[in-house]
């Protein structure tokens, strides 16, 4: 499969105000590439939740987006604490976020299930104490 375009971002874990900037940039780039609004919307929602997770749970990380002919792949990699129980983390409403994060509009435990809902594939590769790599694909 030929890869047409790729984007790379470093996601700052120190600054919640900036969280989501990579997703905003990807949205703009995908619009310029002429990708359909519905596909962009799904990519945007999934990547934004994933980017926020890296900031609030993992101290930041790296975001890579690959645009192929018929598919967009988002890879989010961090060196955070890892996810102890992925099945539990995938449940709606499960969250380990502190109250202070909730007062900033996140930490409802809806992120991971919503990422799965808006993508055609989501894989979570995580090791406790090492980090987490989330791969998501949206086909078109």
């Amino acid at each position, binding site marked *: 499969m030929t890869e047409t375009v790729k984007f790379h971002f470093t996601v700052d874990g120190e600054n919640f105000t900036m969280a989501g900037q990579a997703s905003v940039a990807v949205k703009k780039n995908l619009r310029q590439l002429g990708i359909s609004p519905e596909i962009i919307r799904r990519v945007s929602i999934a990547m*934004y939740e994933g980017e926020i997770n890296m900031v609030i749970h993992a101290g930041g990380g790296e975001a890579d987006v690959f645009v192929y002919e018929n598919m967009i792949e988002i890879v989010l990699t961090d060196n955070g604490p890892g996810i102890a129980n992925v099945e539990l983390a995938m449940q709606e409403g499960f969250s380990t976020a502190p109250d202070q994060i909730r007062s900033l509009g*996140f930490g409802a435990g*809806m992120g991971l*299930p919503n990422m799965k809902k808006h993508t055609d594939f989501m894989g979570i590769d995580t090791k406790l104490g090492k980090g987490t790599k989330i791969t998501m694909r949206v086909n078109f």
Partner: protein
Amino acid sequence: MKISEIKEILDAEVIFGQEFLNRETTSAFGSDMMSDVLAFAREKSVLLTGLVNPQAIRTALMLDMPCVVFVRAKKLTDEVVALAKESGIAVLSTKFRMFETCGKLYAKGLKGSGEVND
């Protein structure tokens, strides 16, 4: 419902986007929890929120929502307004609180995000 009607009903101040007041919205979603907005709001919905940080604008942008109404006359930072401009999202501010804001719009026929399927 046009953004201009929402402005009238809520006696709202237009913080940004005078040129967007003609845009149509099909429904509304009210929450301070952005994850709930991301999970349940529809595109072309107007976002009603008391959360005044840049994430409110970014959330609206991700979902293709045309307008954010900040309730309870919250003071907006320059950063939030700049982000709205950059994103082409209309920003209104109303003195009404969340429940009052929702009630007034609902009474005038604006549906909830869960009641439309566009």
